[in-house]
């Protein structure tokens, strides 16, 4: 049984199909990159999985359970966490508190934050390299720090599946490399990862598989190198050349 199964998942906004009949299986322990040009439907797919949007048709299965119409907080409690494309810190709360919030509903609810929760939050801040900022207000962090805080916060919930939405957009090559290490370490903690990555800078190095979308349709899936060589993927990213068009006309 796969951890996450998408079954003919579609989403329509008015007349526009943001996603059309997506079928995909994610296995436990995998790192899968979700790639595609702007408007391909990557974030929409994440929003459908996490319950932020309801699909127009199709189903989402998680650990064999149909979670299609569950609400976001319910889906999170089944073990799916996410980060956001535009990072969303709790700006007027401290960095440490941001992460502790992730602990509140993972496991049994306690009325007051336990020391273990605070300690685990500190460890996670250490992991993402924000330990020295635990007393800062989250709103004062830089973009890259906010993304790392997002990641620590999501990891604090101890998810089975973590969806990362554009964690490295705008990052320097060095920062991307550090992020790749973080992702690997997250996997070592037993987390399965699904990573949206427009420029493939992260997903090419860390992913076991890629899923490529364009205009809401699945155009390729498989090993990163194969997907990279896929004609449809190249066309989606780079457009068509004259001789390309001639070739496709021949077919």
């Amino acid at each position, binding site marked *: 049984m796969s951890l996450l199964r998408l079954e003919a998942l579609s989403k329509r906004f008015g007349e526009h199909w943001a996603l059309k009949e997506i079928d995909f299986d994610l296995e436990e322990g995998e790192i899968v990159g979700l790639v595609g040009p702007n408007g391909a439907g990557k974030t929409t797919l994440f929003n459908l999985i996490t319950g932020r949007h309801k699909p127009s048709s199709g189903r989402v299965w998680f650990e064999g359970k149909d979670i299609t119409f569950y609400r976001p907080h319910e889906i999170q409690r089944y073990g799916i966490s996410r980060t*956001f494309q535009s990072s969303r810190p709790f700006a007027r709360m401290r960095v440490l508190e941001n992460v502790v919030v992730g602990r509140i509903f993972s496991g049994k609810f306690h009325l007051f934050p336990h020391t273990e929760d605070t300690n685990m939050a500190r460890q996670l801040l250490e992991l993402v390299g924000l330990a020295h900022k635990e007393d800062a207000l989250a709103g004062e962090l830089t973009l890259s720090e906010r993304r790392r805080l997002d990641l620590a916060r999501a990891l604090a919930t101890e998810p089975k599946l973590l969806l990362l939405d554009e964690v490295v957009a705008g990052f320097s090559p060095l920062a991307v490399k550090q992020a790749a290490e973080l992702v690997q370490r997250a996997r070592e903690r037993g987390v399965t990862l699904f990573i949206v990555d427009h420029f493939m800078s992260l997903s090419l190095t860390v992913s076991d598989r890629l899923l490529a979308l364009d205009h809401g349709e699945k155009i390729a899936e498989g090993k990163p190198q194969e997907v990279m060589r896929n004609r449809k993927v190249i066309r989606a990213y780079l457009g068509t050349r004259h001789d390309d068009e001639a070739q496709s006309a021949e077919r």
Partner: protein
Amino acid sequence: MTREQPTSAPMKHLPLAHMVLLLGLAILLALPLLSGGNDYILQVFTHALLLAILALAWNILAISGSISLGHAAFFGVGAYTSGLLSLESGVSPWATIPLAGFAAAVIALGVWLFCRRLRGAYFALATLAFVEIPRVLTDNWDSLTRGSLGLVGLPGLPGLRLGPLYFDIGASSIGSYYFVLVFGLLLLATVTLILRSNLGLALQAIREEETAAASLGIRVQGYRLLALLLSALFSGITGACYAHLVHYIEPGMVYGLHFSAIPVIFAICGGRFTIVGPALAALVLYPLDQFVFHPLLPAGHEFLYGAVIVLAILFLPSGFWGQLRKGQFVSIKTGSIE
């Protein structure tokens, strides 16, 4: 293992803030002595304390991100529930005051029914409009509420006997004053506990980023409702205490803009994101208004409130207490109660 290092920067601000709090508490405790038995001074501070309590209750909702411009609805329903029950049935106010709190919470459920999908300014304006419903009902349902005549001759708060001690609450200004002060301190402790718990963290997370809060497993709507109910409950109890302390209420008074606007004013001046800020503002501004500006400008003394809002927004956007705390908001880390 854990690096429990003394946090340097925030700690520097703690002593001053704590000194202000302790000094304020000492003044409040000793006020009957300081005032030399002057009833008027005690009455003004009793009212200021009631407003401080209302501001504390209002802030429970505000901490979760919903600004209410209609807390007079809860205050008024609380005042009328307790007033009518004690007048008509002769039940002791000690029994009707808690019932008043629950009545206000029921009204809050009504607010929730209509406003639960609203946020920010939309929520605020809807609550402003909602006050009109209980006000018009109270004003016109003569057979039940005695309409615009109001309720006259409400019973005062009976004395309390605790073992050998007898607290004469309703009969003297000093008794009423200490009763309200103790109520205020108890509510402050309750609100502090709530906001420093995981519940408080969840409410703040919802205020800051609802979508992210939900993605961390926080049941956003459930917690917003809980904050509204708690806030309304305490506001209703405050309204009931008010009714029994002044012995006379009418719709235009308890449902008036005064009780809706004043918690907002105090929160802006004192600091919206702090626990005691709004209450402190009430204890400073209301006496200032009554003792200084009322004698000077009998017709327009309330200009003070407008002026302090403008000044606070221009120069102290986080409120004077927020400024003093320098970003020490409700914090699990520092263990501060502010």
